[in-house]
């Protein structure tokens, strides 16, 4: 089943409370620009893992590649 950028956006936003995601992609390779307070104070590794954990084993399989840019934000 094809993956849409919109599905990824909704799942990131649902999976990490307070987050807003901007996802682009072609069905296999995606780029997500993700911002939210959940990332504040975390190492880069931990920030990316937070997003990876939303998708688990689908990464590298159903979602061939997901490139991530994180912007930590103040809690609103």
């Amino acid at each position: 089943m094809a993956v849409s950028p919109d599905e990824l956006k909704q799942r990131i936003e649902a999976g990490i409370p307070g987050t807003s995601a901007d996802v682009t992609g072609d069905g296999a390779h995606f780029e997500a620009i993700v911002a939210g307070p959940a990332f504040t104070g975390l190492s880069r590794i931990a920030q990316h893992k937070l997003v990876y954990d939303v998708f688990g084993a689908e990464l590298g399989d159903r979602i061939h590649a997901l490139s991530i840019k994180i912007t930590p934000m103040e809690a609103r």
Partner: protein
Amino acid sequence: MSDSASNPMREAIQSAISENPVILFMKGTPEAPACGFSARTVAILESLDQPFAAVNILPDPAIRQELSALSGWPTIPQLFVDGELVGGCDIVTEMFESGELQQVLGIEGETPAAVAPAAEPAPLSIENLL
């Protein structure tokens, strides 16, 4: 956690990470990367004249499986410096652009030639370790 005696692949990966100060797990080889993300990560290390060991994860799916189980990181490439996961292509690229990668590698503000170790570690394959 599996018993390492019953999991030679994981043990081999752990040894490779411990024994090589800079090691990249990638798709393909530095000479012939098989994925754009692996290619970009290799290009960054090479632009810094940073010697690194490389492991091609493609020949055996168990390499990737055990590596990800070990590192908790789902994607390839994965760069380790001094036994620590630095990140994948996105993080390596960001850190290169900000100068943090050069810091982690200990080449900040010096000419690469001045800090290059005497011997460049030969690229290794996981088979060599088993």
